[in-house]
């Protein structure tokens, strides 16, 4: 950790190809996470994201094992397959909001158990296994980068196409359904988008910390703005700050990036809560002044009438 402020070392590392790949992949992840985040918060899906991430881990573990037998089964495909499958499963089994919570818990526990078994069967290096938990962004190469870029474009494209009905169904499901929005079709569709984003996150910050990018920045944004559009813009900015800042800070000391990414995003969240608190105080004072002003005006009115 003593190298934390070794700027020279950091700059030297920033010149390396693999670091640049990592930054680019993370920037794409931040973009996707920030764009989906406010809808995740609105739909109360934090736990679902966590469950999806754990199953992305299971998928990745399966891909690790399959990769031993078949050439070209990359971990990221396994992670995406696992996450999408999990998202669909959660979307189908947990249709009623009253049951959703327990369904996620059930599916998550089973998936994690399978993942542990698969990892135990995998004879490769322990470091690769640990990477799934805490992220291994540094190992991203050109091929991974292509997967990231294609996934990003696909997720953002579908999100743009679905945006208005999705916002309607998330913010106001009762009236949305009345107006003919296919609410029950949008739920699994959105879950798949979240699944893809989660799978990308598993590669960078790892399964344990996907929430730091998909939920925390958006939760922070929702504290300081109530406009859905502004919430997306802010969430993207916060996610980028957390993930890129986390990588740059982690370079010199060689610490896993997730430690810094989560610390930064948590700090942003706390700051946003502070801003919200201060604003509420200013607003209350203004309201108090206004009602006092109205009372004075009311008292003055009869006098003026005389």
């Amino acid at each position, binding site marked *: 950790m003593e190298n934390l402020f070794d700027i020279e070392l950091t700059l030297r590392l920033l010149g390396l190809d693999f670091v640049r790949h990592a930054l680019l992949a993370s920037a794409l992840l931040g973009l996707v996470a920030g764009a989906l985040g406010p809808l995740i918060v609105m739909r109360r899906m934090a736990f679902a994201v966590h469950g999806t991430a754990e199953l992305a881990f299971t998928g990745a573990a399966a891909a690790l094992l399959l990769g031993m037998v078949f050439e070209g089964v990359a971990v990221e495909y396994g992670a995406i397959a696992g996450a999408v499958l999990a998202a669909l499963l959660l979307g189908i089994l947990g249709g009623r909001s009253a049951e959703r919570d327990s369904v996620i818990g059930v599916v998550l526990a089973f998936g994690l158990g399978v993942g542990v078994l698969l990892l135990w069967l995998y004879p490769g290096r322990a470091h690769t296994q640990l990477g799934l938990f805490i992220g291994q962004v540094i190992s991203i190469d050109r091929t991974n980068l292509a997967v990231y870029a294609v996934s990003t474009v696909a997720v953002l494209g579908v999100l743009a*196409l679905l*945006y*208005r009905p999705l916002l309607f169904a998330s913010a106001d499901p009762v*009236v949305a*359904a*009345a*107006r*003919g929005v296919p609410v029950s079709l949008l739920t699994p569709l959105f879950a798949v988008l979240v699944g893809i984003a989660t799978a990308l996150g598993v590669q960078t910050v790892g399964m344990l910390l996907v929430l730091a990018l998909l939920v925390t920045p958006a939760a922070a*944004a929702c504290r300081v703005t*109530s406009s859905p559009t502004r919430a997306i813009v802010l969430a993207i900015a916060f996610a980028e700050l957390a993930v890129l800042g986390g990588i740059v800070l982690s370079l010199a000391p060689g610490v896993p990036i997730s430690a810094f990414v989560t610390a930064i995003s948590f700090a942003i969240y706390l700051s946003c809560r502070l801003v919200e608190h201060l604003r509420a105080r200013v607003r209350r004072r203004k309201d108090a002044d206004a009602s006092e002003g109205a009372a004075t005006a009311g008292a003055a009115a009869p006098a003026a009438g005389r």
Partner: protein
Amino acid sequence: MTATAVEMRDAGLAFGKRSLWSGLDLDIGAGEFIAVLGPNGSGKSSLLKVLLGQLSLSAGSVRFPALQHRRRGPAIGYIPQQGTTEEAPAVRGVDLVGLGLDGHRWGLGLRGKRERDRRVAEAVRAVGATPFAEQPITRLSGGERQRLRVAQALVGEPSVLLCDEPLLSLDVTHQGVVGELIERRRRSAGTAVVFVTHEINPVLPYVDRVLYLHDGDFRVGTPDEVMNSATLSSLYGTKIEVVRLAGQIHVAGAHVALCEDEPHHVEERVL
């Protein structure tokens, strides 16, 4: 007033063995204002859910002849009963109203944004919600939200307007404003209005017909035909006294829950 907006034929709705109503023949004309009255659990909200297509009839049929082959959803305006919707974070009043205008359309909706903003602002102004429409809905009072709900339903220019207790938690002034707005909409555009309420007096001048539901039975007719001692006594099977006082209708009698102060919640749990 010739076109039929809603056509119900021998319609019945039952949950298991419990029948809410049956044998309901009802044609709602374009521009007609129908008030749906009845005690809690008599199937008022469920009737709206049937019209929304969210609940299937157990007998008979419901059609929207005026819509022909168009989709039903975008032609419908819906004001849900208060307390049945959860308010999400990061949504302002203007967003809620805007979604009522074009939330059912695909895409980002960047084209025609200026015209959209103008129509939303106009609808917000009409319900007197301009001072608080930019605030998050989680911070608004029940009455403020209710006025935004009315704006949200009207901004989509519906041909059928379904209202579930829209006057709830509004003060007398805003009850008047909301009643007048709905009245103006149906006069100018021929919107059929189905108005579920436990209090008919605020909208009595506008009501063409009353559908009174009670314990599996119902009566349909003009307010004078339904809201009288003889009709309600036969519907309830007990002595009911209906008094007209200063242009208002007051119902007195054993266990008549017409003027109960709480909204009905019983059927809300079905979905």
